[in-house]
């Protein structure tokens, strides 16, 4: 019985004119036009799609609603959007445009009650809390903020627990050191996080094969998200959008 979602995660960067793929949250490389990519993923019948605007918070602006509406109109599968969501009003606007889920991170530092506020209106299933974990130079996993917002918790585990307690329907766990590396998921991190969260955990970072996806779900992830795996092909990282066939995924988890 197939119950694990496989989710392409697309990164928006307006300053670079479209979709990018990062390496350890740095070195964004242009990979294509967002509408075109979303159309292709829709045709490939992906389980779900995630679009994250990695510039919005850093540039001090909100979501690009016009672009998101265009993307949502191409999605005949669930769409999760994250990036620059400042308040419940932003979330409400996104839902009205056809987005199913919002992913929150930076806004929660100043306003931890935002998860509950949005969940009360749209349901807990509509709120994803994104937690980025990066290893310190001593190898100790720590909370990380790509937008440069000082995390509210000293310990990433506390952040997971607080997210669930505040009404998050899902946790997006990002292993920053694995991002874009295609070197396999951080299974220890997934194992620890999934034991802490009694809501679905989406594991991302490092996924490079079907076997990696299986390993991530065996470690406790309910779903896996990946970027590079779906947009790069071959050792020279040529841009080519791919997605496993349903039969392959069904066989993987049968």
């Amino acid at each position, binding site marked *: *019985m*197939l*119950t*694990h*979602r496989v989710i392409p995660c697309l990164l928006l960067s307006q300053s670079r004119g479209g979709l990018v793929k990062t390496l350890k949250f740095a070195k964004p490389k242009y990979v294509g036009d967002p509408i075109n990519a979303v159309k292709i993923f*829709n045709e490939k*019948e992906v*389980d*779900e799609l995630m679009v994250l605007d990695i510039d919005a918070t850093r540039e001090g602006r909100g979501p690009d609603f016009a672009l998101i509406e265009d993307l*949502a*109109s191409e*999605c*005949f*599968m*669930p769409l999760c959007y994250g990036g620059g969501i400042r308040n419940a009003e932003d979330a409400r606007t996104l*839902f*009205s*445009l*056809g987005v*199913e889920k919002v992913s929150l991170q930076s806004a929660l530092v100043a306003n931890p009650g935002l998860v509950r506020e949005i969940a*009360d*209106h*749209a*349901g*807990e*299933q*509509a709120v994803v809390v994104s937690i980025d974990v990066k290893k310190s130079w001593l190898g100790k996993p720590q909370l990380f903020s790509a937008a440069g917002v000082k995390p509210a918790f000293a310990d990433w585990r506390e952040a997971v627990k607080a997210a669930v307690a505040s009404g998050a*329907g*899902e946790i997006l766990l990002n292993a920053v050191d694995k991002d874009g590396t295609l070197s396999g998921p951080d299974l220890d991190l997934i194992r620890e996080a999934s034991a802490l*969260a*009694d*809501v*679905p*955990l989406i594991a991302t970072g490092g996924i490079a094969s079907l076997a990696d996806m299986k390993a991530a779900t065996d470690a*406790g992830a*309910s*779903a896996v998200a990946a970027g590079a795996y779906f947009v790069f092909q071959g050792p020279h990282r040529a841009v080519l959008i791919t997605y496993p066939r*349903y039969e392959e995924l069904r066989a993987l988890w049968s």
Partner: protein
Amino acid sequence: MDVTIIDCGIGNIKSVQRMFQAADGDAEIVSDPAALGDARRIVLPGVGAFDAGMSALGQGWIEPLNRLVIEKGVLALGICLGMQLLCRRSEEGVLPGLGWIAADVKLLDTGGDPKLKIPHMGWSVVTPARENPLIPSDEEQRFYHVHKYRAVCDREQDVLATATYGTTFTTAVQRDNIWGAQFHPEKSHRFGMALMRRFLAMPA
């Protein structure tokens, strides 16, 4: 107009309208109960909590809906929370449901498997419980589910289809002109589009 989608502030209205349009149907969104008029097919989408949904319907929707669906026999389709609202009551809340389907809404039973977290989120194979014009049995049907609760019908013949998440649960219901899907056809690619098409093809 082929389909009238109820917008009482609880649903992913736009996605539902887009999918009906993709299935070549004319779908209007109505956000005022007085504008329900002589709707031919009524769709009640919804996400969120049961009581929030019933409170929203309590703002003038219940009486005209009963008149159209129960008295006049207009085709109706509830989606996700919209399906749960067709039932009598829910463990999630205290308000009575519409009571159109003899069923109570209960928490999902994952059979005690700790790896199966709640809410159930994802694609599940949906198996029709009997021959019916909405969910065919000749080809595997997969639909996107997001839910914590499920309908438990009094009468076996009201169960339209089932799916499995730890245990088997009712994921679609039907009685006479009233249809309900726990899953999201509007977010289920070609499977959902075909379901919308079949709903549009039902005589109304």
